[in-house]
């Protein structure tokens, strides 16, 4: 009799446990689901708006399902696709070439900084670290780029600013420093020179770190528009993000202009055209992200172990 009650009680406790378990899991999932929706819905709205008829968009507002389906915005853009294609070319070029050069520079710098027998290790480390804390500000940056380096309106200006990012150098240095020094000694005994040790021993071992920093750098290049804002006037050199920024800010400036009143404005791109531009510019980038997502996640956790 008593065992039966106990069993019942046991059963009940298990049930409540299971319920609590289910509830907590449900609440976590529900929160995450809501969060996911918050991220996803704006994207869907943009896609839907870009496929909506211009007038219907004004009349009915933004909807998840287009109230009147229309591809006019895309027709408009693809009537003259060179602008967006060129912007893609510029962005792809800066991203690939820039990342490769940046990785070369940063890994070399980080490697020498990680070697305890390097004479200038301390002053050089300080030099790198110092730039993380203090920088000259925008105007000196502008003066350096335009009046000393004369790189304004060149492809190079788009890549130069991210060749060496102090923080990434420090991450790489930490990784290099963790490599056993016996390896390097062994290589030297086998007759390898410094360059050989770096290329054949240090670099292959640091691949995970390089992949991570490479991805970060690539994302920097992909998302960068401020560099172009400062240094690029030639429309042939507009990268994708800057093109988007220009389209948005131009329509804002034009509205400001018409608010001034006694002057007339040019054509403001329609709402749907702007949305279609946004879709075309972010769409492939989003796919790119899905493809590289696992590297990114691994990269984010890289700093966690050492």
């Amino acid at each position, binding site marked *: 009799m008593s065992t039966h009650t106990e069993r019942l009680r046991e059963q009940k406790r298990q049930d409540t446990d299971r319920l609590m378990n289910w509830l907590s899991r449900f609440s976590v999932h529900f929160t995450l689901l809501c969060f996911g929706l918050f991220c996803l819905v704006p994207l869907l709205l943009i896609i839907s708006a870009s496929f909506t008829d211009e*007038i219907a968009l004004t009349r009915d507002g933004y909807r998840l399902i287009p109230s009147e389906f229309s591809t006019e915005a895309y027709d408009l853009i693809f009537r003259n696709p060179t602008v967006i294609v060129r912007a893609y070319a510029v962005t792809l*070029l800066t991203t690939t070439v820039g990342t490769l050069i940046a990785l070369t520079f940063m890994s070399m710098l980080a490697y020498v900084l990680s070697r305890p027998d390097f004479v200038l290790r301390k002053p050089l480390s300080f030099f790198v670290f110092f730039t993380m804390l203090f920088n000259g500000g925008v105007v000196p940056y502008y*003066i350096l780029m335009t009046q000393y380096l004369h790189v304004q*309106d060149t492809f190079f200006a788009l890549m130069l600013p991210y060749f060496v990012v102090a923080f990434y150098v420090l991450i790489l240095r930490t990784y290099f420093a963790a490599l056993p020094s016996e390896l390097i000694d062994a290589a030297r005994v086998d007759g390898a020179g410094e360059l050989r040790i770096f290329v054949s021993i240090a670099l292959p071992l640091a691949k995970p770190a390089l992949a991570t920093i490479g991805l970060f750098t690539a994302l920097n290049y992909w998302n960068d528009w401020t560099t172009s804002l400062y240094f690029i006037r030639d429309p042939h050199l507009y990268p994708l993000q800057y093109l988007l920024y220009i389209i*948005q800010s131009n329509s804002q*400036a034009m509205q*400001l202009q018409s608010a001034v*009143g*006694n002057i007339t404005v040019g054509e403001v791109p329609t709402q749907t055209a702007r949305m279609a531009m946004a879709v075309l510019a972010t769409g492939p980038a989003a796919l790119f992200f899905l493809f590289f997502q696992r590297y990114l996640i691994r990269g984010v956790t890289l700093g966690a172990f050492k």
Partner: protein
Amino acid sequence: MKKGISRRNFLRSMGIAAAAGGVSLGGLSRLSRLSAQGSADLPRLVYLFPGAPQPDVQRVQDALSAYMAERIGATIELRATDWGTFDTQIGLINASAESYDLAFTAPWINNYYTNVNQEYLMPLEDMLPELAPNFWASLTPQTWEAARVGGSIYAGINQQIFVKPFGPYIRTDVLEAVGLGDAFAALTSYEELEAIMAAVKEYVDQDETLTHVTYNLGPILTEENWGFDPQLPNSMLVVRSTDDSAQVLIYSQTDEYRQGAELIRRWYQAGYAPSDIQLWTQMDDAWLAGQFAVRVSDIVKPGGNAEVQARWGWAVTSKAIAEPLLTTGGVSATLNGISSISANPELAVQYLELANSDPVFYNMLCKGLEGVHWEWADEDQLLIRPANGAASFGDTGYAPSTDWMFGNVFNSYYGDASQVGAWPETAELNRNARPSPVLGFTFDGSSVQTEIASVAAAYQEFANPLGSGVVDVDEGINNLNQALIDAGVERIRDEMQAQIDAWKSANS
């Protein structure tokens, strides 16, 4: 192991991509720096202005340079920067003392007064009469006053419509349907508009597409509509246009403001405007979609109806209510300044002379080359059309469409038959406009910056509800006045009055 392989693949694909990038880099070498070579050894003037860079700019620039080389012995480089980025870029250029010669400046973009205060612009009053005599003579001394800051003129003024004769616009089809064309043409005040609004409301209720008479009632309160010259945006500080003693008033304390607010409240309660406050941008789109029939207050100017129709697709009729008033803000809306570190300021002034008094040069700058970008549709009427059968000027490769930015718009050729004759009319309007008692005065708010910020905040919070008619007028105005006073509007007013008095005694 699996991980290692994918990493290797990752790096390898990066390598392949980079190699491909390197190869195409060679092919894309024309992407690299545009060479800035001069046509001769003549000095080259660099002109910075906002606008979308035009594909054919090089060709136009060469033609302009050749024209200038013969006349003033200089060449020009046109450097357009996109609208949204112009302020940032010119800010950097100025701050880093990068050299240029000419730049578009105004109180609303590339701020003229900031430029003057920072000494980025060169005083021109000594050079203008001598080196740009026609340009100098084309504007009255009174008008030049508007560009004067602290005794000096730092920019050339582009002639365009200086006055702001605000008034209502109504869709012609709706006006005809309600049969009140004569009453509309005879309007002299906003009270008289009430009968027309009521008739349109009845029409709207029967119509399927129209949803409201108008979207935004707020512009009725535009200071000029009630005979005031506004002195500082979002501050409510005004000077009555007929008051030669130039007393600074707080607009919301005047009878006219109350009158306007009561009108708005009545019209709002009668359902002439939607109850949720719409943004201006949405208003434009809604107009395009044919949802409303009246714009209560916009600038009514010669050729304005055709312009509105071209932009928003409905034929309109308009009537000015505000008296044309020559104000500092209206005149200084479009200026071209010369950099204080320009190597050739005299040549730059001579350039201003060309741009403002030579129609051939000016139209080349605004419209491009004859036969390439435009051709005559009717030379006697100065009417042009896109060259070689292009559908619009925008398709010809050169159409900045900002004539008012480059010089005297009254010299520009008409691009649309409906605009023909608008310039002499507009010039007439400018000439006959009454000068504001404070024309030429600009307020320097540096000593009351905190107050200006808090007054602007109070204004935003309490004036907008009055402008849309959603609050009771007495209560709304009391709240607004109290908030403005709490925010320190009286201190700004006193400071402004002191500056105006000093300015007046210095000028008399």
